[in-house]
């Protein structure tokens, strides 16, 4: 046994000769190569020795005892697109190491993410990659609220990428459920309160009080109650939601309820564990984002949930890779349960380096969803959806009862639900929804000065008509009761203010967030 000889950083052109292509082929490696190809990756930088906290925990828990002599060091690959002005990666890295600001900026602009390569059979460790450009003009933007910023430091040069970490299961320390929980806990929603757990600590936590004599490592997969325990043991509150249908083998979801539930949780920054079946196998994946559909015309008098149809759901699947795009379909046979069908975008960057592994994947049938929320949020998403429906339906009834000659056309009412920090609602949501100047000033100050003290997290029911936000109703998230009463409602539209006068709604303190009409 000797000391490890130092090795230089190595730079490769992305392609058949890079270290990713040299790995033993599997669906995860193929997926990552296709993904990076679509991101127009041009360069791969290899750090031959990288000590990864997650792998070191797995090494201590399992691999260190083996006579096979597993290494404790990983390698790390970082990925870059073409650098500005066609510069060489090595020369810009050297300049950036000397604090050349222009070179550092070029590296940051070209940075696409990283991947830890472990010295075990399942090679792909912690991996964060940028999203594909969100540049399709005919659809709404993706919602990727759970994403956070990750920094890599290469010889003192710090580069950042926004995403959510993914890794391949090793089947000894972590199976798919552990990986899903690990991804879930990386969320931006927990950034201020949770030290990032390792896969080893999650599997251990899952068995700490609920093992019933079962051995922890090697893991033989987790049961639902193990997953809930692992979340609870990390200081978060687990929430298990069952499907609303039943296909004879267990609960399944309708398209509408599945879409709306996932969307409201993801919009709140909480990734969603999807528990179900792929083919004959039980499987867990983690939804990390979605693309909503644009609200279409809705007749006056009608009510809809805004996110009851999604264009895509983006999922971290340990059997495939990060940000895998799925579309939601209803099965043809009764009870028409929702299934997730992999749906990769058409190639934009020429022929893929390998066959896209998502093409042959069987549909996934979700039966339960599990989500970790902060403990202060006690209200169930189902209660909020029912309250949202009731408010939207009452307003729709009012609009539908206007004499036909004067009734506005296509003024059906939609609603959506999210949970958000009060401070984020005041700072970000109001700022992007309400016009600057007097309306915004009034709304913010009235919420602070005229409304009884509100909870740290708010549940917001947003009422909209024809895509225009009309009303936010703010609920207490610490109250788990079914007959939840709102703290306040923020009226975003002057015409709706008039309508509210005739509606039979108790919505708490009224806050005006529109300009006063000019005095005639």
């Amino acid at each position: 046994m000797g000391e490890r000889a130092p090795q230089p950083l190595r730079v490769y052109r992305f392609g058949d000769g890079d270290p990713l292509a040299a790995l033993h082929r599997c669906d995860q490696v193929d997926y990552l190569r296709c993904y990076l190809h679509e991101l127009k990756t041009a360069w791969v930088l290899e750090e031959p020795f990288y000590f990864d906290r997650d792998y070191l925990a797995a090494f201590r828990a399992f691999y260190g005892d083996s006579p096979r002599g597993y290494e404790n060091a990983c390698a790390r690959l970082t990925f870059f697109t073409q650098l500005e002005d066609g510069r060489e990666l090595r020369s810009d890295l050297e300049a950036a190491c000397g604090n050349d600001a222009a070179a550092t900026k070029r590296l940051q602009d070209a940075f696409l993410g990283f991947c830890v390569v472990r010295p075990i059979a399942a090679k792909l460790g912690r991996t964060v990659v940028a999203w594909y450009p969100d540049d399709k003009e005919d659809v709404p933007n993706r919602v990727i609220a759970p994403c956070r910023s990750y920094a890599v430091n290469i010889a003192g040069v710090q580069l950042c990428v926004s995403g959510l970490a993914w890794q391949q299961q090793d089947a000894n320390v972590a199976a798919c459920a552990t990986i899903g929980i690990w991804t879930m806990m990386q969320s931006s929603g927990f950034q201020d309160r949770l030290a990032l757990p390792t896969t080893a600590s999650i599997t251990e936590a899952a068995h700490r009080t609920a093992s019933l004599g079962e051995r922890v490592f090697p893991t033989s997969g987790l049961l639902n109650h193990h997953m809930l325990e692992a979340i609870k043991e990390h200081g978060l509150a687990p929430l298990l939601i069952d499907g609303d249908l039943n296909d004879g083998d267990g609960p399944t979801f309708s398209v509408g309820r599945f879409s709306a539930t996932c969307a409201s949780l993801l919009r709140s920054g909480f990734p969603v564990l999807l528990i179900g079946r792929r083919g004959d196998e039980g499987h867990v994946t983690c939804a990390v984002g979605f693309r909503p559909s644009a609200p279409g015309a809705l007749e006056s008098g009608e009510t809809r949930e805004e996110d009851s149809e999604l264009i895509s759901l983006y999922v971290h699947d340990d059997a495939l890779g990060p940000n895998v795009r799925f579309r939601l379909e209803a099965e043809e046979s009764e009870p028409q349960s929702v299934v997730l069908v992999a749906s990769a975008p058409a190639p934009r960057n020429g022929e893929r380096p390998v066959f896209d592994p998502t093409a042959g994947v069987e549909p996934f049938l979700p039966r339960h969803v599990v989500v970790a929320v902060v403990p202060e949020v006690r209200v169930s998403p189902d209660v909020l959806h029912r309250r949202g429906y009731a408010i939207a339906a009452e307003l729709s009834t009012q609009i539908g009862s206007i004499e036909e000659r004067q009734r506005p056309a296509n003024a059906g009412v939609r609603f959506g639900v999210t949970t958000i920090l009060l401070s984020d609602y005041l700072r970000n949501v109001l700022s992007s929804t309400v016009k600057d100047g007097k309306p915004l000033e009034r709304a913010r100050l009235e919420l602070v000065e005229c409304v009884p003290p509100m909870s740290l997290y708010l549940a917001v029911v947003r009422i909209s008509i024809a895509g225009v936000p009309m009303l936010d109703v703010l609920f207490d998230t610490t109250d788990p009761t079914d007959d939840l009463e709102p703290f306040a409602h923020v009226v975003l539209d002057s015409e709706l203010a008039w309508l509210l006068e005739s509606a039979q709604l108790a919505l708490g303190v009224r806050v005006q967030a529109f300009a006063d009409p000019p005095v005639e």
Partner: protein
Amino acid sequence: MTNSQSKPKRSQTPRPASSWTARAGDQPSPLDGLSRNKPTIVVSVDVRSEAERRLKERTKPYLAGRTVELLTSRIR
């Protein structure tokens, strides 16, 4: 901003937005004219009961009972 983020492009038609990304007051109110015309709104008993029936139907998925199979399906 990394280069994977799209740069805004000029477009003739605005990109569709969900109500969470739209700004109130950027376009005419979909209820334009209500406060000016002050139409009579009379919600008849029939309309009310039909609305309540629809509401009950639509919120049914959110009343699904918990049929948790905690100890039966191992997930790998």
